[in-house]
């Protein structure tokens, strides 16, 4: 487990296989939710996660690959594209400026 400080998150990356579908949908949803918090939300293929990301969310099946690409950045795996509790916790921590275990 890593502690993520929501108030320090400036860039959130949604990583997936192709950057074609599901990550795009989740990124656009998160972008709306976090627009007021000054957070940049981008989607990216898992192999090309930018090194200046503060937190990465990705499908559970891709989490190990993501951690390999960016070993120093917290990676939050999720199961559901819409309404996943792990993603909701990260969103709340960023909105509240609180910390969360990821």
């Amino acid at each position, binding site marked *: 487990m890593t502690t993520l400080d929501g108030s320090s998150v400036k860039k959130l990356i949604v990583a997936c*296989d*192709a950057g074609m579908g*599901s990550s795009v*949908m989740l990124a*656009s949803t998160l972008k709306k939710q976090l627009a007021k918090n000054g957070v940049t939300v*981008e989607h990216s293929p898992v192999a090309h996660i930018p090194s200046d990301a503060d937190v990465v969310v990705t499908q559970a099946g891709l989490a190990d690959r993501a951690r390999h690409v960016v070993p120093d950045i917290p990676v939050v795996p999720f199961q559901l594209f819409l309404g996943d509790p792990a993603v909701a916790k990260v969103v709340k921590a960023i909105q509240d400026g609180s910390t969360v275990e990821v």
Partner: protein
Amino acid sequence: MSDEEAQKPLTDLLAPASIRLDAVAADRDDAIRQAGAALIEAGAVDPSYVDAMVEREYSVSTYVGEGVAIPHGTLAGKDAVTDDAIVVLRFPAGVDWGGNVVSVAVGIAAKGNGHIALLSQLATVLLDPEKAAALRDATSADAVYELLASDEDDE
């Protein structure tokens, strides 16, 4: 990746002929191959892309909730994409999708970012249970267009 690139008009991206409201599929692979065939007919992908779509589904499911899946290929299959296009296949009888029942498969081929506004709107539809039900129950292409047209307050 910038989302600010020019967005295609909805009917360019999702052609009327690419909306199939009474599809029947034997299983998930069959449904994905039908979505792939519709993308080929739309002139967006080479046949090899369909295999990439099926393979991708075995590694990571594209089920996104509310009875909707968004089958698409992988980065490796991207060379087989010649144009951005979306197809909508509705399976009124439902398709078993690894334990979930899928009523609508939204097939995606993306070369650039022309499809992002539509996917963004799809996410909005799926987060609203009433709109999600309306998509599952859509019986006309107009109803599909109405649901997937971008909100003006999108940004």
